[in-house]
């Protein structure tokens, strides 16, 4: 399977666009085309590779890919100019100067920070672990109160300035959206029911971890909030969600009260939002918080690594439920730190505390 964040037609167009003043984009696009060729080659079955060795360049030694695979980010930020047409116009490329537009520059910096967490802490090369370029579009729609991952890019609205300000104002939200891409290329959790709530939770977990990593906050210092600072002053609330205390992020006359449960006793059965994926994510979110606090120190180091091992370790099916995921995290903690380790015990206790069974 060929997985590319940039449609091939766009790469072709950019690669041919030197004359229009897009040298950097053209270079980046040609680089991506070459990378895609390399990926295609790597995807060819081993026996065919053997057959082709005489025709193509020699297959690199196993370690040879490592340097190339942990490249820096290749970011391109676009503006939709307040339309809903994607991708929009390029406004900032890798190594380009700051634009002065907060939405553009926050998206650029936020994608860089998230890329850095995955690269420096988990040795992951971008979203797909093969140095996929990072694409973001800002100024999507008019007064658009949302941000999303569309399978190829992160998209951010400006907010309506009544309830929400611009979505790029929160680094945890940028990390959340990029992590949807990581999940798509790793565990591939379906966006529905418990698998969907897990998909959401994984995005929240690495969303808060990006903020903690950048700020250097330990488990005791962190806010554990998703989307702090996104509400206008008119809203009574701190953030969209809290991993520390799901259900307490806001309590507002207009929006109502944060409806997230923190344990299975509050599990919400609903047909809305693909089965309440943004509600029931509170339960695995809280389990991560409990495990991280029990382990102590910096959450991205041990607890984050266990969760990262879980989504990339191959133990999860796309339709995994909470119990499948919990069982996989305990297995990942045992593999990383040992079957009798305090880390494994902390993860096990966290799932028990939120009412999710771990299978033996």
């Amino acid at each position, binding site marked *: 399977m060929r997985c590319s964040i940039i449609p091939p037609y766009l790469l072709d167009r950019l690669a041919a666009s030197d004359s229009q003043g897009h040298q950097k984009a053209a270079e980046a696009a040609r680089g991506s085309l070459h990378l895609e060729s390399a990926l295609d080659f790597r995807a060819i079955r081993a026996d065919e590779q053997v057959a082709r060795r005489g025709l193509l360049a020699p297959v690199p030694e196993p370690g040879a890919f490592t340097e190339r695979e942990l490249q820096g980010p290749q970011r391109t930020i676009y503006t939709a100019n307040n339309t809903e047409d994607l991708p929009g116009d390029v406004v900032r490329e890798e190594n380009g100067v700051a634009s002065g537009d907060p939405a553009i520059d926050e998206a650029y910096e936020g994608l860089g920070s998230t890329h850095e967490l995955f690269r420096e802490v988990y040795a992951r090369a971008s979203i797909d672990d093969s140095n996929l370029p990072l694409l973001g579009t800002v100024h999507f729609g008019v007064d658009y109160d*949302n941000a999303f*991952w569309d399978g190829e890019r992160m998209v951010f609205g400006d907010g309506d300035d009544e309830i929400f300000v611009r979505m790029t104002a929160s680094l945890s939200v940028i990390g959340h959206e990029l992590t949807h891409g990581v999940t798509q290329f790793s565990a591939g959790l379906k966006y529905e029911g418990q698998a969907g709530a897990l998909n959401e939770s994984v995005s929240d977990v690495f969303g808060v971890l990006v903020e903690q990593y950048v700020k250097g906050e330990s488990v005791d210092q962190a806010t554990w909030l998703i*989307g702090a600072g996104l509400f206008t002053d008119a809203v009574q609330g701190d953030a969209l969600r809290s991993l520390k205390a799901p259900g307490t992020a806001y309590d507002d006359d207009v929006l109502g009260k944060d409806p997230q449960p923190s344990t299975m006793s509050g599990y919400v059965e609903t047909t809305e939002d693909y089965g309440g994926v943004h509600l029931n994510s509170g339960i695995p979110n809280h389990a991560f918080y409990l495990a991280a606090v029990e382990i102590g120190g910096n959450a991205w180091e041990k607890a984050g690594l266990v969760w990262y091992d879980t989504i990339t370790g191959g133990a999860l099916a796309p339709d995994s439920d909470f119990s499948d995921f919990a069982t996989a995290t305990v297995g990942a903690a045992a593999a990383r730190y040992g079957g009798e380790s305090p880390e494994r015990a902390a993860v096990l206790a966290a799932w028990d505390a939120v009412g999710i069974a771990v299978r033996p």
Partner: protein
Amino acid sequence: MKVSVTRSGGLAGLSRTWVVNVDEQPDPEAWRSLVSGLPWDSRAPSPRHPDRYVYSIRWSRYRMVLSEADLGQWKTLVDRVREKGEPEQGQA
């Protein structure tokens, strides 16, 4: 005759509903024409889009659930209900 639109999901997971009582609108015939001209019996596309809004559109015994990304010809109705409709349950 009532038409309702419930928007759920989105990054924030906030749910909002708007309802239009078509008979109380100044142009009820235009509303009836718009609503009855839509393919209520068709199958909704199945792709899921992380953090995009999900729209549940109801009229009479019909219900259509669509991602914001797949609204297509339903967008006119959704926009009009959001514009003209009454927010339900004291929501914004």
